């Protein structure tokens, strides 16, 4: 067990991609303390910012106001990171495995281009959850991201596989250019959900203001959804047992074969 407590919030962003079990687990206490972090343009030691308790471990706990601490869990493949407090951008970016739990909010790019593992944010998340970085062909290609609070714009942009579920409302362009995977919106989204999507599924429990290039295909309660609902319920995101779904397809502009399932409380 390794516990890191932020002494005081950094004055400029602190890039700390070393805060990953893959890097930390094999190290001694002293080695952990000496790891490099980047405070703006300065390379400094980890222990100049964090009180370090314990030796390197697959179980890492972070405490404090980490809102400016970026790249936690970058490229991690194993282990657990638990964060008590807010955390900065790029949490779990390019992650391949393991588990990140945030008791607080996370900034933009949670799970950017992640390929596997689980990220659970108890508070809000910023924009670009599970998204592609600028220019990349694909965003998230596997794994699970659960957000209990709200999320920002471009959630799941260009995602190819995996699951993103957001309990709170999300802003514009959810599932932008989505190519696969599932995006569950428990409280709906603002504008342009599913814009330019080619494949994949967006499930929304609230009505969405879809683009005019989406068409209503049918009204149904698909069998696979019951299975999926069981999986989601296990993650704490239960879908309603009653009602049915409007199934929209689009985006015809691409043209794409994505589907948007919008829950209807009363069967049509």
């Amino acid at each position, binding site marked *: 067990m390794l516990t890191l407590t932020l002494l005081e919030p950094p004055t400029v962003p602190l890039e700390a991609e070393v805060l990953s079990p893959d890097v930390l687990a094999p190290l001694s206490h002293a080695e952990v303390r000496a790891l490099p972090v*980047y405070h703006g*343009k300065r390379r400094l030691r980890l222990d100049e910012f964090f009180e370090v308790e314990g030796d390197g471990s697959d179980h890492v706990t972070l405490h404090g106001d980490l809102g400016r601490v970026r790249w936690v869990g970058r490229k991690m493949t194993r282990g657990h990171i638990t964060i008590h407090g807010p955390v900065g951008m790029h949490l779990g970016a390019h992650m391949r495995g393991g588990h990140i739990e945030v008791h607080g909010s996370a900034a933009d790019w949670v799970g950017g281009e992640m390929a596997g593992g689980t990220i659970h944010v108890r508070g809000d998340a910023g924009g670009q959850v599970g998204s592609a970085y600028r220019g990349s062909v694909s965003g998230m290609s596997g794994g699970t991201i659960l957000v209990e609070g709200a999320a920002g714009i471009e959630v799941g942009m260009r995602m190819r596989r995996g699951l993103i579920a957001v309990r709170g409302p999300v802003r514009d362009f959810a599932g932008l250019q989505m190519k696969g995977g599932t995006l569950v919106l428990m409280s709906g989204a603002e*504008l342009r959900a599913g814009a330019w999507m080619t494949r994949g599924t967006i499930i929304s429990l609230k009505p969405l203001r879809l683009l005019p*290039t989406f068409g209503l295909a049918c009204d149904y309660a698909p069998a696979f959804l019951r299975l999926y609902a069981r999986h989601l319920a296990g993650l704490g995101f239960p879908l309603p047992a009653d009602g049915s779904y409007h199934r929209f397809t689009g985006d015809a*502009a691409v043209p794409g074969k994505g589907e948007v399932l919008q829950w209807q409380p009363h069967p049509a």
Partner: protein
Amino acid sequence: MSCTLGEVKNRADLIIYWGGNPAECHPRHFTKYTIMQKGKYVPNGRKGRTMVLVDIRETPSAKAADIFLQVRPGKDFEVLTLLRAIVKGQRIDPRAAAETGLTLEQLTDLADRMKRAKFGVLFFGMGLSMTRGKHMNSAAALTLAAELNAFTKFVAMPMRGHGNVTGADVVLRYTTGYPFGINLCRGYPRFNPGEFSSVDLLVRGDVDATLVLGADPGATMPQPAIDHLARTPTIVLDPKVTHTSRLARVHITTAATGITAPGTVYRMDEVPLPLRPPLKGPYPSDEEVLRRIIAAVRKKPAWEPDPAGVMAG
């Protein structure tokens, strides 16, 4: 999908302005580059061209247009996306289309004109690129133009404002690979719009000193950004004492670009042009002041980035 403005002058028979008001913001655009010119392959000038204006309100530019299409505010992305679908022959629900403020008929007519044009051009302004959807609105315009090349020759380009912002883009790209928002804190260029864009950096309070040149954020940025500029050391190089100068720790008056300072600037289509300053002023150029600051920094203990601090892949 772009071209230099002479291509438009010589060839374009369909000219669309979207979310811009050239009559007031780029007054000579019509007469020097687009609709009014007699082109090599458009010998009849204005008569040989169709101009379409798409905007949320009827600006003075509408008077110059053959067709004015009034889009409901915030629906530009929807209209461009609809056009992409219509161009590809996709079926659209007329009621859904009508929510944009334009009828399916109007949209289909525009799509047909675009496909039938011998050489079409779509100029998009800040009404598109700076409203809700921002870079995706621009992407929609560029994608539509690219896809139209399956039918005819079609280009799109932003109506960029402010003097030499295009030149900044050009120089940043060849020195760093990226057009704007470049982080050099680790000694090499990194790019992530939103993370390294000035407004975001200042609003979040991520930076702890700012050098401002060729801009007046103190007059244009949101208040939290201005507050941060006032709170942290700000340095301004400008031909005038600006709003930003007044909240800055340091202001240096510099020569005015093209009036008292020589050099190179780029037109919105990335054509480089020399400056011929008519006056000799009392102030040094930005270039010279920057060189002097560089020389002063070089006298201090060097900041050396960590060669091992490369964030791979």
